[in-house]
């Protein structure tokens, strides 16, 4: 029997190193993973693809034993490594079991050199007499040995990095390689997870990285590769696993598929085709906003070079995957982050560093960061709605002594709030309730009311339905559409949800890697949108 178990273990070892079996996970009743199973063999590269929110990150968090999983009630199903069922409660357990992870955001110590980072907390030690007196902690580091080990790890990758350079001085590519080298240096690393490793790399660096990954796989390390650049996934992966809405759509060999098919799997076909009835084509009309060569340094949403025109009266949508820069566009134009480029609004050049002037000229912005930027959580609803209009347009103020004293007109402010509370059906006790006491959907309505109170000519609405429930979503979207129709206000809407954009917008621009990869009409096929999102146009497939 002993023998049998042993043989079985061996067999499994040859078959699959990591088995993910029937994994399900929900956050507070919201099912994010649904019965997902797949295997990863030794030396195999598995490409894990899916849209934002498909469940990739949650799956990796489970695999890596992130505390957020156990804090929210754990998961269902089994993870089997080397034939043994595991359930990691901390990332340290996962590391001990031989799982390494390379993150999109670096977790390196900036003030340390490459060597020190690679060997952090596993440095070879040198004995000295103090050890006998004061104990283990008195060992000194064996720099010679460290250099040797670090060099070995870097050489495995096939790149050339100055080992003595401080991480803070490295180009991003080198940081990425240092991070990978650190994971490799653990002698027991069996499985390596790459989460969007090429996002920050230049093309040539990405090529080197991909080669390095192949090399690692050839040495028998199993690799899970997550990237939104499908082209890369298709080149490198042996097997592709597609997730959509928390479900495993397919698990297939790369050889047997192509990009078109993968895109189809990712975006799905079962889309509700309730299209908006009257799409207006305003193209060719008056250009109200023209943007040329816009760059925005918004952390995590870098805009590299974006040019576009918005026609008066239309609803223009910006879509694309998270982190590609779509959110940076309105934030940059409104002057919230360092930005540059030529922006002409209503025939006049706009100094996009001056938020006050920008709003005064007729632009308004409903921020995606509702609780951070959009609201005064500790103030009343009426203050929230009226504040911007009061500060910039001097509305809701009584003036005394020839305008020397600008007295807040509390009556006018609460009237305004009452008006919007009725109009948008904001659920609250009164206009003097604190904004933080409202639900997400109602808070969003306040943000919209705040923008409408400015009576803008052009309104940016960023992620208007993020974090609010389905009913409120519909109301918010209807409000936006209605406002556009009734007041002729031009609206630029940024959203991660393609379906939302398709149901509201007249034109949709897709942003990828800080650039606009294409502009489509809402009735264009999902495939076309999918191609633009994954960084390649239809032509080069």
């Amino acid at each position, binding site marked *: 029997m002993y023998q049998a178990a042993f043989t079985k273990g061996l067999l499994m070892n040859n078959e699959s190193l990591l088995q993910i079996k029937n994994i399900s996970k929900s956050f507070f009743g919201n099912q994010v993973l649904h019965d997902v199973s797949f295997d990863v063999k030794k030396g195999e590269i598995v490409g894990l693809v899916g849209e934002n929110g498909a469940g990739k990150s949650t799956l990796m968090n489970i695999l890596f034993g992130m505390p957020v999983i156990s804090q929210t009630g754990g998961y269902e199903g089994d993870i089997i490594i080397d034939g043994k069922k595991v359930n990691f409660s901390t990332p340290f357990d996962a590391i001990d079991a031989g799982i390494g992870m390379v993150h999109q955001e670096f977790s390196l110590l900036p003030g340390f050199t490459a060597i020190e980072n690679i060997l952090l907390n596993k440095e070879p030690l040198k004995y000295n007499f103090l050890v006998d007196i004061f104990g283990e902690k008195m060992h000194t580091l064996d720099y010679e040995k460290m250099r040797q080990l670090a060099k070995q790890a870097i050489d495995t990758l096939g790149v050339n990095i100055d080992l003595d350079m401080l991480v803070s001085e490295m180009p991003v590519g080198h940081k990425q390689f240092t991070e990978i080298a650190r994971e490799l240096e653990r002698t027991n690393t069996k499985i390596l997870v790459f989460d969007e490793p090429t996002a920050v790399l230049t093309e040539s660096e990405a090529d080197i990285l991909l080669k390095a990954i192949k090399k690692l796989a050839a040495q028998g390390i199993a690799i899970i590769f997550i990237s939104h650049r499908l082209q890369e996934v298709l080149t490198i992966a042996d097997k592709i696993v597609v997730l959509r809405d928390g479900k495993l759509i397919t698990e297939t060999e790369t050889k047997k598929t192509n990009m078109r098919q993968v895109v189809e799997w990712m975006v799905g076909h079962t889309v509700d085709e309730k299209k908006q009835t009257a799409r207006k084509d305003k193209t060719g009309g008056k250009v109200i906003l023209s943007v040329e060569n816009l760059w925005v340094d918004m952390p995590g949403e870098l805009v590299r070079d974006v040019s576009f025109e918005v026609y008066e009266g239309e609803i223009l949508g910006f879509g694309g995957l998270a982190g590609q820069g779509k959110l940076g566009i309105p934030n940059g134009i409104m002057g919230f982050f360092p930005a540059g480029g030529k922006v002409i609004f209503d025939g006049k050049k706009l100094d996009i560093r001056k938020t006050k002037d*920008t709003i005064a000229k007729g632009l308004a912005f409903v*921020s995606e960061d509702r609780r951070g930027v959009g609201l*005064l959580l500790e103030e009343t609803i009426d203050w929230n709605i009226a*504040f911007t209009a009061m500060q910039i347009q*001097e509305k809701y103020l009584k003036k005394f002594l020839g305008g020397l004293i600008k007295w807040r007109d509390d009556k006018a402010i609460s009237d305004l709030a009452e008006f919007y509370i009725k109009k948008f059906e904001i659920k609250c006790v009164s206009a003097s309730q604190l904004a933080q006491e409202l639900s997400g959907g109602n808070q969003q309505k306040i943000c919209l009311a705040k923008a409408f109170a400015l009576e803008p000519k052009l309104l940016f609405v960023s992620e208007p339905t993020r974090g609010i429930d389905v009913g409120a979503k519909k109301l918010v979207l209807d409000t936006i559409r209605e406002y556009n129709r009734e007041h002729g206000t031009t609206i630029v809407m940024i959203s991660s949800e393609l379906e939302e954009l398709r149901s509201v917008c007249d034109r949709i621009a897709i942003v990828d890697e800080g650039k606009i990869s294409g502009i489509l009409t809402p009735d264009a096929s999902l495939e076309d949108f999918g191609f633009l999102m994954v960084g390649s146009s239809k032509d080069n497939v």
Partner: protein
Amino acid sequence: MKNKEQKILQDVNEEKCDVVITPKVSPIKRFIDAAGWPRIIIAIFLLVLFICAPFVKLSLSRSISDTLVRVGMNAIMVLALVPMVQSGCGLNFGLPLGFLAGILGALLSIEFKMTGLLGLFGAILMSLPFSLLFGYGYGLLLNRVKGDEMMIATYVGFSSVSLFCMLWLLLPFRSPVMVWGFAGKGLRTTISVDQFWQNTLSDILSFRIGSDFYFPTGMYIFFAIMCFFIWAFFHTKTGTAMTAVGSNPDFARASGVNVDASRTLSVVLSTVLGGIGIIIYQQSYGFIQIYNGPQYMGFPAVAAILLGGASVHKANIGNVIIGTFLFQGILTMAPSVINSALKTDMSEIFRIIISMGMILYALTRKTKVRS
């Protein structure tokens, strides 16, 4: 890795918090929530002290009178904290900087032999250039240390007091009531304003009941005017912007408000009020205390406003009035009642325990504000 966790938790929270909170509580509970346990306990304690006073042979009317005078003396210094709390700069532990400006004004007024109300208002007017200048520089400094304002402010207070210790010796004041008698130069540690403007403000419309009770009406009228100014200021466009800056600087910036300018203005206001506050204190107390005198005078003010129910970034005039009354009441009554009962002098120790204890309590509650 950490970012990712936070992001997920945040998403989860947003999903979860989609509920409208409708408060349904009894009136008593609502009163307790609004007033807060610390205030209720302190108020009851104060009441007990007043009740005990006659039993340890203290005159009740004298005790109440003493308390009211002390409240009037300190109230403007407490009020001076409001602008900075509202603009998000936290509690102004650097209030001594304003006091120094006020002291300079008071000393100049004495140097110029100004007496009566002229002397008092002359002192206030002459303190303004200093407090405006100090406040502006202090404001610029605080804009560079966002998030750590209170700690930096504490040391601004300490270091400026020490710097002025040197200046008091060196500045060319000549008035014989102020300088050391032997050397004929260098200021004394305490300077009496007796011959100049002691109680000139307090005595306006003041009245006595019996032999023990005295009410400094003028001082209270002046305090009321100051409160009105602050109240009115926070009803203007600029004041509204300042409140928003304190509540959420990102929101204010997104609405086109110049956050730094608004914060600087609040610091200037606070410093100016601090200067006025110390002069009012001096006219009632009768002495100008210099050298290390102002060093710890900011702390009782901070303790008072916190006791009044202010948080680190929300304060109003009600907090100032309630807090000053409770705090000064305890400070006046507790030592005298306890001293009389125990026949020892522990007043200073009690004062320090109470004021520092209040500050400690309030600062530990700092993080609880944003839900």
